[in-house]
């Protein structure tokens, strides 16, 4: 896809700028704030813009809010991307197998998918994390557990149409193994609509992670925006900035992912119309 077409849409540009900034924040966090962001840095409840050593102030325990924001970006982006990648991977494999094999296999896999879809996703994540215990990997798994059904259904629908194409039949004529046909001929062509879903999944994953952290089920060894909001909740009236600042970061992250995702999808759609 051409970069020029992407840059023509202001929404997409805004999305990529926001994402770029967040990405830079995440990458720069250990360089700009090499210490532990959970360590006490100054006097507690210092308001923003009072002390230039701590520009965004400190929380109830005297921890640097700006450092938390930077390190929180790491967690949010990492969890969002990892969870989305895991759910798209699992979902597209399940969907491809179901659509390509058909019959009983399809029936069983789709009923399992239905079962997962009938349970509210957040409840599922909550249950898993509270049973296994909060750590980054478990949080990623918990989010993927509730998000893989969308990609699975879309992949299956695509595969159902693609497996009837002539190039699949000709792969059969040259004696390609069915598994190889499914994953080399069918899956790559079924992926674009599934990938279009990825921005929604990433955004939802970031929000789910924040919600889990807000409920105290995030990884306790990492700063998360959700955890920071929860931390500020107790002093919401006297020091609202403690919840507002990470809240704004969260809104921007989700917005950036959405806008950039939309831009990419529109760009690809325009290219396909031309082709």
């Amino acid at each position, binding site marked *: 896809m051409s970069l020029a077409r992407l840059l023509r849409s202001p929404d997409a540009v805004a999305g990529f700028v926001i994402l770029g900034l967040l990405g830079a924040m995440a990458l720069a966090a250990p360089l700009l704030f090499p210490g532990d962001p959970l360590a006490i840095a100054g006097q507690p409840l210092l308001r923003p813009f009072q002390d230039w050593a701590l520009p965004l102030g400190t929380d109830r325990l005297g921890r640097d809010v700006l450092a938390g924001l930077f390190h929180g970006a790491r967690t949010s982006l990492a969890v969002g991307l990892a969870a989305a990648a895991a759910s798209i991977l699992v979902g597209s494999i399940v969907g491809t197998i179901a659509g390509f094999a058909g019959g009983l296999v399809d029936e069983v896999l789709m009923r399992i998918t239905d079962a997962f879809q009938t349970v509210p996703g957040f409840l599922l994540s909550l249950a898993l994390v509270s049973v296994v215990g909060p750590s980054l990997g478990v949080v990623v798994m918990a989010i993927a557990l509730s998000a893989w059904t969308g990609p699975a259904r879309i992949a299956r629908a695509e595969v159902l149409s693609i497996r009837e194409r*002539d190039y699949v039949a*000709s792969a059969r*004529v*040259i*004696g390609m193994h069915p598994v190889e046909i499914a994953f080399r001929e069918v899956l*790559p062509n079924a992926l674009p609509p599934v990938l279009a879903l990825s921005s929604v999944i990433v955004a939802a994953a970031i929000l789910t992670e924040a919600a889990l952290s807000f409920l105290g089920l995030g990884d306790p060894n990492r700063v998360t925006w959700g955890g920071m909001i929860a931390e500020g909740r107790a002093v919401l009236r006297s020091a609202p900035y403690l919840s507002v600042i990470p809240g704004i970061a969260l809104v921007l992250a989700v917005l950036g992912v959405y806008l950039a995702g939309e831009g990419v999808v529109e760009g690809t759609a325009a290219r396909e119309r031309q082709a």
Partner: protein
Amino acid sequence: MSVILEARNIVRDYHVPGSLLKKAKTVHAVKGVSFTVEKGKTLAIVGESGCGKSTLGRILTLIDPATSGDLLIEGKKIDIAKGDMTPEMRRKVQIVFQNPYGSLNPRQKIGDILTEPLVINTDTPADERRDRAMTLLKKVGLEEKHYNRYPHMFSGGQRQRIAIARALMLNPKLLVLDEPVSALDLSVQAQVLNLLADLQDELQLTYVFISHDLSVVRYIADEVMVMYFGEAVEYGSRDEVFADPKHSYTKTLFAATPRADVESIRARLARKKAA
């Protein structure tokens, strides 16, 4: 003359599963068709849409199994339902599909499309595979520079040439051509038909040519089989069938072919005036 392909009483039924309101039914797509094709000859299978000719083509190329009946290739009985396909059997029959826009995987380069049959069925080293692909590209009227391009960069006629080259990669004895020119412009049709005729002479290929276009059939066929609702209603040499059609459907079919000679145009105009 040696017989390459022999079909005895081929039957193919499709079962349409019933639902609450509809009863299950069986569609007889091919109802007991028998024929033989000799080496270097062309058998044309003619018939209207839905008469079972493509289903028969898929059975001949071992994509779908026949419900009953025997298929003998070079005197050897083949039954794909038993799943004992060896690469040697695969190599004997290849297919060219009707729609050149659907028969090439849009995500593979031409070189990969062409070398794939060799990768799967032989242990030819990579440079020999490449050489053979290059040779065939030139043989079907394309150039070496096309090796690294994607299917969307080609016109319909060029794509059909690529599909023909792919079918020839394994040195097949028998080529099933499923309406190979009906999706092409008239001028390109002639080019591709000439290419097919040349290749047949050069490589001693045997063709099963599926078509509904009688002018094309008259040009390329040695023998003609007319199918009507799954049955072979007429089967004989080209001159026999064209000179003296026996079955009423064949007569209707021939009468439906538009004629472009001056006499028939005058007659048509006269009829129009009279009416």
